[in-house]
C-alpha cells in the first residue's frame, strides 16, 4: 500500500484545498493519471498519481485544506496484495541513534522546541500576541515576528497597531474611489502575489546570487525563424522564445552544474526541465515547466508553449508542470527593458534572463553593422557554481544561437 501525498508544487507551497477527486475507491490508476484537482495559491491544479495500482481509500474530503505532505489517499500497488509490504511499511523507522538509551531512568530534557512537522505552515505567535491581534483586528500574517524563532510577540502586534492608525486616512480616501478590478481577480492575484513574495524572499535571503550577462547577435536566429515561419501556417508559427528555450536547454547539456538544485549540496539533475516564466495580466507569475526541453525540437517546444501559456494564464496547470522544473528561463519579449537579471527560484541554482531584442550598432571583424541583439543574463547561486561556470554557459549559449539550424 502506498500513500498518496499532497504534493509540493514549489518551495513556496504550504497547503492545498482538495476540490474534487477524479478517482474513487476501486478505480485502477496508472502513473501519470489525474487523481484529484487541488486549489492552491497558484490556482486549480490537476494532481497526478505516481503509482500503478488501485485506489484503496480516499482520506481527504473535497473542501478540506491540508498541508503539503499529508496523506490524501491510499493506493494499493501490485506487490502489496501479499500483505507483507503493509506490515513492513507500518513499522516506524528507528534510526540507530534513537535506539541508544543512555540511562533508562533519566529524563533527558532538550531545550529545543518540537520540530514543526510542516515548517512555515502555521503563523508562530504568542497567545498574548494572538489575543491582542484579534481584539484589534490585526492580520498576523502581515507581521514579522521578533520573538523566539521568529515568533510574533506582543511588541510586534502593538507596533502593527501603531502603524495602522497612521495610514487609516489614506485608506478611507481610496475606499470612496470606485474599485477598478473585480474582487475575485484581486483575491487570486493576492494569493499569487503572496506565493511569489514568499519564494523570492527565501531566494534573496538564502541564495548568494552572482550575475553575468552577454550581448548576443540574434540576426541568424531571427532569420532562421523567419524562414521557418514562411513555411508554417499561422497556428504553427514560432516565437523567438521557443528557440531561446531550446538553446538554453542544449547549452545546459554541456554545463550540467547549472541544471541542478541546492539542498545542502549541489545535486545535478538528469532531466533538463526548463521552467518558463509566464506573467499574469492580473499580476504575479506562473512558471510551468517544459520537461526534457533538450530532447524536444523547437516546434515541439512551441507546441508546449501554445499549450502551457494559456493554461498558466487561466491558472489551470497540472502538478507535474509546476514542480518539475530544474532551471528557470525568463524573457521580456519585445519592447521593454534591455536587460533582465533574474532572482533564482529555490532550490534551483540558476535563472536565465533575456531582455528585449533591440537593434544595436554592432562591431564585428572591424566592420560596423546594425544587428538585432539580445542581452542574455545568468543569475547563479554562488554556493553551487562560480562565475567560470556561468561564463562557459553564456559562451555556449551564444554559439548555439549562432547556429539555429542545429537546434
Amino acid at each position, binding site marked *: 500500500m502506498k500513500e498518496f501525498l499532497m504534493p509540493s508544487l514549489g518551495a513556496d507551497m504550504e497547503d492545498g484545498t482538495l476540490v474534487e477527486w477524479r478517482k474513487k475507491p476501486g478505480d485502477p490508476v496508472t502513473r501519470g493519471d489525474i487523481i484529484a484537482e487541488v486549489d492552491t495559491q497558484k490556482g486549480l491544479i490537476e494532481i497526478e498519481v505516481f503509482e500503478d495500482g488501485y485506489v484503496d481509500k480516499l482520506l481527504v474530503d473535497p473542501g478540506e485544506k491540508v498541508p503539503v505532505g499529508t496523506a490524501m489517499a491510499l493506493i494499493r500497488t501490485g506487490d502489496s496484495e501479499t500483505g507483507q509490504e503493509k506490515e513492513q511499511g507500518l513499522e516506524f523507522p528507528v534510526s540507530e541513534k534513537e535506539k541508544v538509551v543512555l540511562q533508562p531512568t533519566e529524563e533527558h530534557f532538550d531545550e529545543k522546541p518540537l520540530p514543526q512537522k510542516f515548517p512555515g505552515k502555521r503563523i508562530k505567535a504568542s497567545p498574548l500576541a494572538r489575543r491582542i491581534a484579534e481584539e484589534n483586528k490585526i492580520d498576523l500574517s502581515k507581521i514579522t515576528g521578533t520573538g523566539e524563532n521568529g515568533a510574533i510577540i506582543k511588541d510586534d502586534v502593538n507596533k502593527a497597531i501603531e502603524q495602522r492608525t497612521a495610514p487609516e486616512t489614506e485608506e478611507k480616501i481610496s475606499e470612496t474611489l470606485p474599485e477598478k*478590478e473585480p474582487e475575485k*481577480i484581486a483575491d487570486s492575484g493576492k494569493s499569487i502575489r503572496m506565493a511569489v513574495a514568499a519564494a523570492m524572499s527565501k531566494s534573496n535571503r538564502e541564495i548568494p546570487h552572482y550575475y553575468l550577462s552577454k550581448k548576443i547577435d540574434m540576426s541568424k536566429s531571427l532569420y532562421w525563424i*523567419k524562414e521557418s*515561419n*514562411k513555411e508554417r501556417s*499561422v*497556428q504553427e*508559427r514560432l*516565437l*523567438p*522564445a521557443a528557440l531561446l528555450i531550446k538553446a538554453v536547454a542544449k547549452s545546459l547539456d554541456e554545463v550540467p552544474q547549472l541544471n541542478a538544485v541546492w539542498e545542502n549540496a549541489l545535486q545535478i539533475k538528469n532531466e533538463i526541465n526548463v521552467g518558463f516564466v509566464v*506573467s499574469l*495580466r*492580473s499580476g504575479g507569475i506562473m512558471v510551468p515547466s517544459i520537461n526534457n526541453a533538450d530532447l524536444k525540437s523547437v516546434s515541439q517546444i512551441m507546441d508546449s*508553449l501554445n499549450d502551457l*501559456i*494559456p493554461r498558466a494564464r487561466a491558472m489551470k496547470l497540472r502538478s507535474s508542470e509546476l514542480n518539475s522544473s530544474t532551471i528557470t528561463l525568463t524573457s521580456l*519579449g*519585445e*519592447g521593454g527593458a534591455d536587460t533582465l537579471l533574474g532572482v533564482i527560484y529555490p532550490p534551483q541554482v540558476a535563472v536565465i534572463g533575456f531582455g528585449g531584442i533591440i537593434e544595436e550598432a554592432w562591431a564585428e571583424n572591424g566592420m560596423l553593422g546594425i544587428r538585432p541583439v539580445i542581452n542574455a543574463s545568468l543569475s547563479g547561486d554562488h554556493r553551487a557554481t562560480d562565475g567560470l561556470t556561468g561564463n562557459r554557459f553564456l559562451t555556449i549559449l551564444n554559439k548555439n544561437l549562432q547556429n539555429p539550424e542545429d537546434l
Partner: protein
Amino acid sequence: MKENEIKQELYALLQQIAPETEPSALAPDENIKESLDIDSFDTLRFIVSVNEKFEIEIPEEDYGKITTIGLLTNYIQKKM
C-alpha cells in the same frame, strides 16, 4: 463585412486575450500591443484568432502593417 462589424469582431477577440481591458476604447491609430500591454505570445494568439475568424492568411512580414485597429481593419477588408 462592414468596417464597423470588423472592428466589433476585433474588439471581441482582443477581449478574450486581455479580458480586463477595454479594446473598444482604443483610438484607430493607437498601437494595440502597447496600449493593451499584450506580449508577443498573446500577439501571436491574436493573429491566429484573426486568421481563423476572417479566414485570411497573414504572413509574418505583414505583422508590422497591422499594429493599430485602423490599419488592421483596412488590412482585413483588403484581404477578404
